[in-house]
């Protein structure tokens, strides 16, 4: 499923002004960047509460098309700037990681 389709279906706020509307092939939920780095599959959506630039360093290494920030947490401004440069979408939801993981799973795997 494409980033924009997922965002609109689940009512996610899109924080980045531009991104590639790339295909989301899988998902991974974690707030530990080494865990993501070591275990997530490529082209996943990352479900996390880490709203800062370092999340994107990992996302870009793994060719993630999107990062979903949970609990309505703030995304740092420099995170969004970096995301726009890398064309990675930063999405936001009021749901927590558990609920988000379920909803995203149903959309992309269901």
């Amino acid at each position, binding site marked *: 499923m494409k980033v924009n389709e997922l965002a609109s279906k689940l009512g996610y706020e899109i924080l980045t002004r531009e991104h590639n509307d790339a295909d989301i092939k899988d998902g991974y939920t974690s707030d530990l960047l*080494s865990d993501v*780095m*070591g275990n997530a599959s490529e082209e996943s959506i990352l479900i*996390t509460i880490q709203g*800062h630039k370092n999340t994107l*360093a*990992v996302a870009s290494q793994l060719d993630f098309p999107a990062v979903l920030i949970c609990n309505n947490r703030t995304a740092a401004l420099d995170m969004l700037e970096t995301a726009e440069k890398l064309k990675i979408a930063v999405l936001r939801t009021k749901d927590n990681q558990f609920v988000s993981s379920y909803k995203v799973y149903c959309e992309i795997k269901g």
Partner: protein
Amino acid sequence: MPDRFPISTEKSPNAIMEVILRLKIKDAMVTKVITADRNATMRDIQNLMKDNKISGVPVLDSCRLIGMVSVNDIIHALDKGHIEEPAIDHMTKSLVVLEDDMPLSFAISYFDKYSYRRFPVIDKNRKFTGMLSSRDVLSVMLQELNKEIKELEEKIVNERDELPNQIARDFFIKKFDFENAGKSSFELKKLLKEKNVSSAVIRRASVASYELEINIAIHSEGGRIVYLVDDEKIEIIANDTGPGIENVDRVVEEGYSTANEWIRSLGFGAGMGIPNTKRVSDEFEITSEIGKGTSVKSVIYLEKKNESE
């Protein structure tokens, strides 16, 4: 003299950035400073300036800085007939000060931000410790850059000894520089993609390079990461300048971490960095010496029978 300080704290080469982050204001400042005490009059200070050929005098209350008198303040006092009055009534009281423990990069941005030619320096107990002028900054920078360039030149000679068909990339990683963390891994990934290395191998190299890069930023005083790529293998060599690891055997255990709370709040310090790196490496070595630094080498072969895609 140019309007701005001729060194950028954002876009300068790594070697310069290293120097201005490594050097502290106390390394550059002048500590022998002519000062006046709180009872001095403007006339006393005018005489101090004349006798010592200086253009600014800090006013101290015991060791605490309470103000500065500049030539302008003296001219103003002469003009208004305040020259015999206590300096404490006519000095500049709202001061921009630097702390002696700040990196020199702070001072450089201050010189850019404010039009002052010098800044008073205080220590963490707010005790006056010296003065810093742009001249002091330039002089200490030149000394350090001489050393730095000498080292770089020696390194270039070493790099010429490298094998043909080998690509070498070298990055400096600074302590707590999470701004740039991940950049060198990004470069390695780009290079491997251009070389048409299989995506599984790129993935493993990304894990190793990112983890080692982040480790230098989190745990060390700063260091270097070197990538050597040839037709057979990728070598990732991470060296830092300290503090060294007490028990190297423990860091290869998953979950062992010495990272503090704020590092953890950024999503680092899960205690998976070294185990992740080891897992993706075909060869892995870690050596460390307290007070000296840590050295990690990860080798990943481009082709391996049991892992071809």
